[in-house]
């Protein structure tokens, strides 16, 4: 098994692992960690695609690698927004949860 195939399979496993955490963990910060695991798994799939595309004197296809760099930046930006929301939620309320039931309590005649 070549290193790139191994990395691709690792990526696949990471996607599954992250999906498990994303669905099951009730805490949003844990969900965010799980999302980041999925993200890195997806980037590894780009990585194997890039490595397989070695040709014309390149040891890799530069296009997917460039996409991974863009993707890492975007994923970080997403994490930053999520962290800001989580911290504000924790500061505003006693429960850091996304459980819709907690938030669907009748809240009087408040408007937008």
């Amino acid at each position, binding site marked *: *098994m070549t*290193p790139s195939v*191994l*990395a*691709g*399979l*690792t*990526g*696949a*496993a*990471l996607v*599954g*692992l*992250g*999906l*498990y*955490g994303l669905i*099951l*963990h009730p805490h949003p910060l*844990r969900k965010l*960690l799980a999302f980041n*695991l999925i993200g*890195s798994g997806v*980037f590894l*799939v780009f*990585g*194997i*695609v890039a*490595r*397989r*595309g070695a040709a*014309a004197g390149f*040891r*890799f*296809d*530069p*296009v997917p*690698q*460039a*996409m*991974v*760099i*863009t993707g890492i*930046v975007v994923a*970080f*930006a*997403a*994490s*930053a*927004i999520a*962290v*800001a929301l*989580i*911290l*504000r939620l*924790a500061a505003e309320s006693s*429960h*850091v*949860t996304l*459980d819709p039931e907690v938030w669907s309590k009748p809240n009087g005649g408040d408007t937008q």
Partner: protein
Amino acid sequence: MSLRPFLDVILASLVLGVAIFTITARDLFAAVVGYVAYGLLLAFVWIRLYAPDVALTEAAVGSGVTGVLLITAGKRLGALKDVAPDRQPGLALKLLTGVLAALVASALGAVILMLPDPPPSLAPEAAAAADGPGAGLGNPITAVLMSYRSFDTMLEKIVLILAVVGVWSVGADKAWGDAPAPLRQQKAYAPMVFLAQMLAPVGALIAIHVFWTGANAPGGAFQGGALLAAMWMLTMMARLAQPPRVDAQWLRLALVAGPAVFLISGLAGGVVAGSFFAYPQALAKPIILFIEAFMVLSIAVALPMLVAGPPSERQDQ
């Protein structure tokens, strides 16, 4: 080199092991620390995939800056009043989710093994274009990011600005205009100050070096900017510097400098080079380096601002 496959398997199992720890750890903070270690290990996987540019980015951003972000978040969450325990999912749901996740992972794994042979690749096109639109750039990834797919790269910088506004928008109304809370609440600790004083200037030099060589060797605007950002965060953690006010004009100009210069050159390309986001053949390399210099600045400012969080009312301790 019969040792290499063996090392690869060890590396892959380490990555997976730490990932499993991150998902299953009981303690929130332990999971966060696990994730940071995971990011560093991942950088090695990228080296093994002949992707030093990605490895640099992963180490600097995926592990480094994200690590600071998450650890700060974990600490701030821990410092808040104790949070009501959430309902844990039942065993049936766990099993069901486990089966679903395993199915997805194995389907994906199978599909990866089925990717076509010979693999399609744009490497030949990129090599051919290196004499044209990517003129003079020895690093094909920089050529892709700054020339062939420059539109993506410009938009990604816009995403960063938008994320900064998004993070700021979560703050309180009263605090608008103020600075974000310091990265470190307590008094600075002497070794930290020493580290910041020694490392920051050297790190800044290395950052500029990484950016500059990025035209021909692994590195580039993003990696250089991220390193510079890390140095700024280090000085903020040592409390040698404070986060700036969000309404500071210089801050906003620095944040938009990269995308704005990119946009202006892109529009100028429409007049001078016959197509938006095209560069005149002879000047391609200097123009790209010029744009990248401003991008380094914007990234170096944007990442710490994303970590620092929304403006907060002053509460000095």
